[in-house]
């Protein structure tokens, strides 16, 4: 029953969010600067796609709702009580996302080596249980791997990854 409820809820959430996305996606097409002299405008395909997303979203939502209605009230409350603690897990997901977003934000000012050293260390720490963490090992991996990859890209691919705050130091080495 719990699995059924979970699937129904997942269907309803997927349906609502996808329908919302489809509406916004469709509305945005009215902001395109279109050339009306052409036989088929640049907004046609996006509108078809928005329609397709909306139809699928509606089908998935109503399927979920139909199943949800068949589940007794008591089973719903039971499942709610069992779900306590899942928000804590989602908090770790949020932390991981913030690290990835931090990489995007910090890459230009800090450069590849510094950003990835910090990001890798934080990610190692985040992904491991507190009692099992090996900070020394993480520090070694986090420092050596981004540096090695930076020089690998430079010497093998002739490709300079962002240098950031180490610009002057790297200019002397490279």
């Amino acid at each position, binding site marked *: 029953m719990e699995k059924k409820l979970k699937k129904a809820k997942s269907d309803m959430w997927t349906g609502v969010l996808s329908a919302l996305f489809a509406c916004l996606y469709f509305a945005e097409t009215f902001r395109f600067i279109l050339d009306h002299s052409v036989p088929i405008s640049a907004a046609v395909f996006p509108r078809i796609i928005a329609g397709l997303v909306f139809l699928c979203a509606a089908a998935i939502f109503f399927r979920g709702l139909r199943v949800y209605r068949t589940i007794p009230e008591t089973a719903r409350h039971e499942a709610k009580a069992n779900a306590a603690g899942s928000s804590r897990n989602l908090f770790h997901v949020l932390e991981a996302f913030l690290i*990835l977003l931090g990489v995007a934000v910090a890459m230009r000012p800090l450069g*590849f080596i510094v950003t990835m050293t910090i990001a890798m260390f934080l990610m190692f720490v985040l992904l491991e249980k507190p009692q099992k963490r090996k900070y020394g090992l993480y520090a070694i991996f986090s420092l050596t791997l*981004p540096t090695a990859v930076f020089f690998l890209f430079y010497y093998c691919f002739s490709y300079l990854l962002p240098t950031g705050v180490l610009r002057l130091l790297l200019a002397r080495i490279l």
Partner: protein
Amino acid sequence: MSAFQYFGHALATIFTTPQYLFFMLLFTALGILLGALPGINVNLSLILVLPLTYAMQTESAMVVLLSCYIGALSGGLISAVALNIPGTSSSIATCFDGHPLAKQGKAGQAVGVGILTSFVGGSLSYALLLLLAPMMAKVALKFGYWEYFAVSFFSITMIIGIAGDDVFRGVLGAALGMAIAMTGSDPVMMVNRYNFGFHALDGGVTLTALMCGIFAVPELLKLAETRDDPDVEVTKLEKFRGFGISAKDYLSRWKNILRSTVIGTYTGILPGIGASSASLLSYMTAKNSSKHPETFGTGDIDGIIASETANNACMGGAMIPMLALGVPGSSAAAILMSALSLHNVQPGPLVFANSANLIYFIFAICFVVNFFMLVLERGVLTGYLKALTAPPRIVMVIVMLMCVCGAYSSRSSFLDLYVFAIFGTLGFFLQKGGIPAGPIILGYILSSLCELNFVRAYAISRGNVMAVFHRPIAAVFMVVAILSLANSVRKTIKADKARKAAETDLASNG
């Protein structure tokens, strides 16, 4: 001289020139290594070796580039199986059955079969190329905009099957992929779409950043989500011999092998369709023709055979438009073509008459490199898989590092790092909602092809959409696509009814 005489002469030249053999060994190994690293695609691998070829003779340059290309194309299957992150987009369909096998401890067997079938698919495709190249080039010339539209539409309907019994989730995934692809300038009138005022988005969202995000980030976030759960025992790698499959067992699947080779080669001939569509079409055809379609997606060897045979066979097919028509079918083919142009060889309809020696030399390189690929990739497989069985938390953080490099270096844009992070996280929630990553990426790849050809065909036919049914090849693809879509809807309704009946039975039995 006949085609076989040219080919024999080219083979003799290769085997009597140690320099060519050394280059093949070295650059095939490099290609496999690069292809197996998530985030480094075939194009980047070719770009890496292209500058080395500037000072070389044309023949040596082709040896270096083709060795790296074939190696990288095949290497993509290792990370697809072991990490569920395709090294190249052509290995997406390999993930569907390869990774479930890896979870059962059979990663070695899955990659072994993939390597063997890559070799077989490639070799059969090159044989077809040798026999039929001039004739096939003529058929490819008959493809117009409607035919291209019909093929891409047909491919999109094939994607839906990946989502299993749930057609709505399959369509939703493909449509979301298509929606992402609409970002940036439209392919015909260059009208800016969905850039939200950021000019960095005018060029759209790059495939590498999106693919790294959608496939790698959800795996990373899953580890974060399950951090506090009790530790799950890491699946041990089962021992395997040879390629993980007996010759008898492999040959008993000859129908799948031949069908996938034909699909791969023919899809490769069509410029712009690409190896990812070829492997998908082949996978879906194998699933639909199987007596046990329900085993696909759970670790069926036939799924790996279909995908890997087709994407390697595509390589042989892709040579035809590139050499005979001068039309590069993919970015990688464009890089190969530019290398030919640098050496004053102009691909086009006259190439078979003007540069027959070089053309058959290229075919011979493909044959020999394919053999090197088989030996080298099998040789490094055990070591590579052992490295990947290190604690998943360590492996995934290193994969994140490589993906960040891949996402950024695809066009040196900081925006792609945001794409990687945001679409990756979105992919995690979509997977939680039951929408798999495969349809999203394939929808992304096929949508621009579909739109571009539809708009052009529509303009040429003066708004007559039914013109698609006036052209025999296009009409066949459209009819098959519509039938396949109807079949998927029928299956969903049937599955829903069966589920309802099972629930009613369960309720009535107390």
